[in-house]
């Protein structure tokens, strides 16, 4: 791929970032991570408290990416078929079937937005697993393809009533799980409360220009981008050590306060997970106008791509967010490069 193409796409990506950052203020890092996921062709799970802007953020990105956009709300009574079709009684008094959110946009579906995913039943998660992994669905005796689809999902980590924990297999399908926290900058906090611009979400999202990216070219470009950014032997060795450390942190002297490290990790990062780290790191290098991956690129995406893949002992599951963050930071501190 020519340098010009890389530069053009980078400009588009940075423009998208810029526009989204105007809509969702104080979230530069999550915005960068979501941009990275889009170009690494990975699904994104946002996690955060109620009302911190998760949905707004995803909607803003969706508008900028272009293509078909579908959305569904996770509820306890949501069934898998609700994603595929609707049945209703028509004006003629006869039952009718129409395409559900997954099928409605056909192959042009670029963003499937699953709001409050943890309120959906495991059956729904199960369907989503296949769609996310294979980007296909069998319905009405036909195979449907969604080659450009990205799943954006969010979940409320505070509320536990009428929710279902997302199994590790489903979590592993997401390239990144990105925590969204309220900005601590006083000026931003003030503007979020007093600036009326932030009170009308629809108008706010509508301020993002549509179709900043050509969604149907993203797959091709992403593949070329991955081939354009190199990873040196030293970096490969570094990444392998990081991987090993997620499996056996004690071998690398990694410690987390108040945690028995010998009992903590049941399963470290998966090969798919580490592959996604590299994909995301390559995109990050490209966004920073580099032709090779640096350890800093890995660090930028490491927490978001690995934390949700770790499987801890049940006794530590309640504190997984805090422990995973501390453990991954300790791993980065412990592993040297070269």
């Amino acid at each position, binding site marked *: 791929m020519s340098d010009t193409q890389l530069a053009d796409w980078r400009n588009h990506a940075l423009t998208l970032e810029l526009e989204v950052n105007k809509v969702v203020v104080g979230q530069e890092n999550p915005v960068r991570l979501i941009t990275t996921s889009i170009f690494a062709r990975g699904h994104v799970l946002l996690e955060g408290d109620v009302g911190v802007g998760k949905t707004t953020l995803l909607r803003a990105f969706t508008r900028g990416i272009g293509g078909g956009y579908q959305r569904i709300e996770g509820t306890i009574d949501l069934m898998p078929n609700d994603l595929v079709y609707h049945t209703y009684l028509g004006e003629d008094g006869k039952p009718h079937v129409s395409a559900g959110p997954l099928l409605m946009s056909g192959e042009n579906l670029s963003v499937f937005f699953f709001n409050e995913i943890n309120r959906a039943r495991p059956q729904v998660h199960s369907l989503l697993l296949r769609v996310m992994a294979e980007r296909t669905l069998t319905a009405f005796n036909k195979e449907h393809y969604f080659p450009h689809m990205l799943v954006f999902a969010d979940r409320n980590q505070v509320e536990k009533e009428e929710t279902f924990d997302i199994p590790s297999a489903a979590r592993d399908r997401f390239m990144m799980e990105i925590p969204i926290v309220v900005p601590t900058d006083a000026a931003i906090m003030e503007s979020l409360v007093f600036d009326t611009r932030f009170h009308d979400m629809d108008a706010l999202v509508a301020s993002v220009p549509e179709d900043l990216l050509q969604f149907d070219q993203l797959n091709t470009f992403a593949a070329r981008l991955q081939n354009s950014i*190199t990873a*040196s032997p*030293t*970096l490969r060795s570094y990444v392998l050590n990081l991987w090993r450390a997620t499996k056996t942190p004690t071998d690398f002297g990694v410690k987390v306060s108040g945690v028995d490290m010998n009992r903590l990790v049941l399963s470290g990062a998966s090969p798919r997970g580490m592959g996604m780290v590299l994909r995301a790191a390559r995109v990050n290098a490209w966004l920073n106008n*580099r*032709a*090779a*991956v*640096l*350890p*800093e690129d890995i*660090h930028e995406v490491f927490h978001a791509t690995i934390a949700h893949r770790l499987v801890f002992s049940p006794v530590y599951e309640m504190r997984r967010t805090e422990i995973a963050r501390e453990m991954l930071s300790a791993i*980065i*501190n*412990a*592993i*040297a*490069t*070269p």
Partner: protein
Amino acid sequence: MRTRFLLVICAIAFGIQPAIADVILPDVNAKYVSLTQENPTRDAGFVVGDVLNRTITLTIKKPYELVKESLPIKGYEHRYRGQISGIELVKISTEEAIHIDSVTHVLHLRYQIFTTGKLAKPAALRAEIIKLRHSGSKEVVQYRIPSYGFRISPLSVFGSVKLKEEMSPFIRPLRLDASQDRLHLEISIGLLSIALLGLLYIFGMHAWLPRMGAPFAKAYRDIRKMPNTDEGLQKAVARVHISLNKTAGSSLFNSNLADFLQKKPAFTPVKQEIEKFFTLSRQVFFEPNALANLDESHKVWLQRFCRHLRDCERGLNPDLKSKVSY
């Protein structure tokens, strides 16, 4: 004859020494006698009971010969001005060697001290006077064996003694007060040592000085030995990385450099150099096409950079302007 006999009787009766004993004979001509003597090896520190050996070797040329009866007698108590000196000859033995024109007599004399005093006092092994007879004319002459002077010391110090005048062997010689000079000398040596250590500290290459075993000091020594090749450069950069990580207590990257400098402000002066180093590391390990923007040999720059880090490590201000390669 009768008168003479009466005189002798009177002399005995009144305790008068016979006149013949006081007869002073003429001295022998020195060319007929030669003398060597072996005296005690020291001339002081003798106390009561000590024994002094003296060996006299006399060579008497013909026509004179020794009158053996004139040799000193064992047990004879020497007197000086009528007082017993307290030094007694306790043994005498002789050897004789006859030559063509002379006879050699070796006299082994052993004296013992039977006197002492409150202070050290001078004493002498007396000068023995022996007689020589002319074999042809019966002429008798005398020869005086020189005395040997020494000091007798008391067994202990009695009463109040002026130490400066005391010559007892049990008292150490008095010394001049050199404490002030000694203090000056010690201070000077101390200052000189500190100055030398300072110089070694700054310019030295050895690990035994304080902080010489610190990470960058070691790295500096290691890098100097590495070859100026691509492989050597990789090793050198990796070596600096190790020291940086060790100093930081965790892996140090460009992204957490600010935290490192906050924890270790001594390294703030070399912030830009550290950033350059990360660029160099990027070129060496991750992105060969990246430009390190160093206007000199990588090895030379790395060596100087490591020295600057070492200076920071020691709390010194690195000379960032100097382009001298060390």
